[in-house]
């Protein structure tokens, strides 16, 4: 492709990023296996004690959010490091803290039977009705806190680097271009805009998260200290929603960078693009009240705003990002391979995943669908077909960019298998939600079992597909290590 010279050459070898991706990939597989086991138990296919089920629930949520965030931040770091100077030390420190945190949560969950779900809704960690004790709760909450500290340090560093290069976070979002002070052609690259957005929202989320984690820890140590539970709930969802949501805003950087290279068409950060990202920054931070629509004790205007903002939050992706991805691919003569196919699929997953969320954010709908399996239906599409596809798309891209390793028929088979079966999982959840199946139930009545069984079986195929993806990446790592390491700093042009 003749036009590729416009793109800056990418570092071919980034061991830190590769390590972080393979760890995330492994954690995703483990997390998915727990997911399948839960669906199988709900479908009556296997026997699982209630304690076991809710421990699996807790580890599944923690592992999935954790690995999605870890992989997505590696994607963001990899591309952002081509534009600004990031600290390798901080990147490595984040991984160490992540692993430490994960080990603590695992010990808390499986050795001390802690099972509050990853949302640790105050005051559940302290009041378990005898299911778990102080040690388990402190290990889990402490692990989450350490995990959060790692990510916080990472985003402080990205913020620092962006401010150093571009002057301020406002300029990182291209506000001077929006205001007309600077020409569109001098706008910050899409990667920088997205990274700035994530830096802002995630520093806010993690600060809120730290506060509410400490609240829970205090109440676990001494239940005499009480806090306002509604405020705690607000902070919990502010943290949880933003942090989970931000994974896709980091991972989408892979879409910008990779699709533009594959098609030889530039992904320009023009005014509508910048406005869309500023809107996303703002909305992502304040949209979380849609998790509290069933709390009529909340001020009514906040809840109505929760619905309105949820709708508004769908606009940037529907009109700018997804549309941009379609436009760049349309009649581009793109040569499809594993990387580009997964990336393209991810945009479908994201866009389609927005739909059930928008439907459920209407208060009248939420009244009969909140906390049914409709909600996991939405975020399994959004995360499972969105973030996960971006993540593995990036991994295939890295492998292709950095080695001679060819993909084969098995990889293609895995792609089809993953795409169809993950879609099956999502649809099974949505159907469950439509027939009022509550989420987070260890067992189902017979009427609810059918979709859960379909979900469990689809889930097995998802695990097989993802395992093939990971194996390809493992083959790449081993093949790469055999070759000379002297090319460590070599920079190659892509494709």
């Amino acid at each position, binding site marked *: 492709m003749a036009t590729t010279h416009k793109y800056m050459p990418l570092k071919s070898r980034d061991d830190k990023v590769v390590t972080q991706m393979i760890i995330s990939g492994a954690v995703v597989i483990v997390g998915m296996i727990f997911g399948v086991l839960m669906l199988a138990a709900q479908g009556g296919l296997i026997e699982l004690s209630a304690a076991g089920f809710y421990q699996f629930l807790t580890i599944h949520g923690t592992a999935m959010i954790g690995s999605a965030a870890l992989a997505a931040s590696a994607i963001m770091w990899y591309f952002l490091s081509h534009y600004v100077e990031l600290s390798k030390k901080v990147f490595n420190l984040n991984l160490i803290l992540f692993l430490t945190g994960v080990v603590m949560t695992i010990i808390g969950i499986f050795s001390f039977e802690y099972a509050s779900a990853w949302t640790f809704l105050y005051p559940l960690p302290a009041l378990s009705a005898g299911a778990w004790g102080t040690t388990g709760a402190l290990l889990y909450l402490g692990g989450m806190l350490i995990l959060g500290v790692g990510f916080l340090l990472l985003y402080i560093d990205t913020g620092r680097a962006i401010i150093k290069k571009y002057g301020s976070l406002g300029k990182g979002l291209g506000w001077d271009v929006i205001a007309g002070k600077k020409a569109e052609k001098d706008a910050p690259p899409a990667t920088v805009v997205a990274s700035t957005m994530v830096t802002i929202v995630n520093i806010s989320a993690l600060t809120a998260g730290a506060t509410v984690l400490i609240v829970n820890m205090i109440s676990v140590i001494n239940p005499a200290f009480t806090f306002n*539970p509604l405020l705690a709930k607000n902070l919990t969802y502010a943290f949880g929603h933003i942090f989970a949501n931000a994974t896709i805003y980091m991972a989408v950087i892979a879409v910008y960078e990779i699709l533009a290279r594959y098609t030889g068409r530039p992904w320009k950060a023009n005014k509508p693009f910048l406005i869309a990202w500023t809107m996303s920054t703002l909305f992502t931070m304040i949209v979380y009240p849609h998790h509290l629509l*069933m709390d009529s004790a909340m001020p009514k205007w906040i809840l109505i705003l929760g619905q309105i903002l949820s709708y*508004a939050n769908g606009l940037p992706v529907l009109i700018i990002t997804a549309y941009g991805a379609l*436009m760049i691919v349309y009649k581009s003569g793109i040569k499809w391979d594993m990387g580009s196919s997964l990336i393209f699929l991810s945009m479908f997953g994201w866009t389609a995943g927005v739909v059930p969320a928008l*439907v459920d954010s209407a208060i*009248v709908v939420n009244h009969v669908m*909140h906390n049914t399996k409709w909600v996991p239906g939405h975020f399994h599409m959004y995360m499972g077909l969105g973030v996960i596809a971006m993540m593995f798309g990036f991994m295939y891209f890295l492998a292709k960019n950095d080695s001679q390793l060819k993909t084969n028929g098995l990889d293609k088979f895995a792609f089809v298998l993953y795409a169809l079966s993950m879609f099956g999982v999502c649809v099974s959840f949505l159907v469950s939600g439509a*027939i009022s199946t509550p989420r987070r139930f260890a067992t189902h009545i017979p009427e609810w079992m059918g979709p859960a069984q379909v979900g469990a079986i689809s889930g097995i195929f998802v695990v097989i597909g993802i395992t093939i993806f990971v194996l390809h990446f493992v083959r790449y790592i081993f093949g790469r290590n055999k070759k000379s390491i002297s090319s460590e700093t070599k920079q190659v042009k892509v494709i």
Partner: protein
Amino acid sequence: MVQTVAWVVSLLFILVIAFVFSFVAVKSTQKHDYEPIVKKWYKIRKVYGTFVVILMIAAMIYTLRELPFNQPVYSEGNEPVIVDVEAFQFGWTISEREFDVGQSIEFHVTTADVTHGFGIYDEEMNLIAQTQAMPEYTNVVYITFDKPGTYKVLCLEYCGLAHHIMMDQIIVK
């Protein structure tokens, strides 16, 4: 029923999105210059964007007309029955469990310990109303049953290991 509408609408939109993505994927193998495509698609985007915004505003106005947390206007002599509900790990204290069809009822829901969810299911196990049971707060469900039968109360917020068996029932005659 709301759930059916939600499901059909979602499925429809997801299929439309899937169709658009497939269409673009099929067309992707042709190779054309980008400039004219950009020009044409930006024009289409204006129309499409306006359409999406209008659709959303319409949906918003339509769905925000009546909210489940608004107290209905009761006619004179038709004062509602106020039912106190307290959730606990793992069960329900409900001050009154038998009602008549057509009777206005307010469930005032709170909890003795952790957060629970108060969900009312009809005989076919369809969720017909819910609210969160929050410590220190009282949330209200306004409801008038129009069919007799045995309704189930389920917990709709994860509250501990017996969350899924925290069931109770109310009878409407």
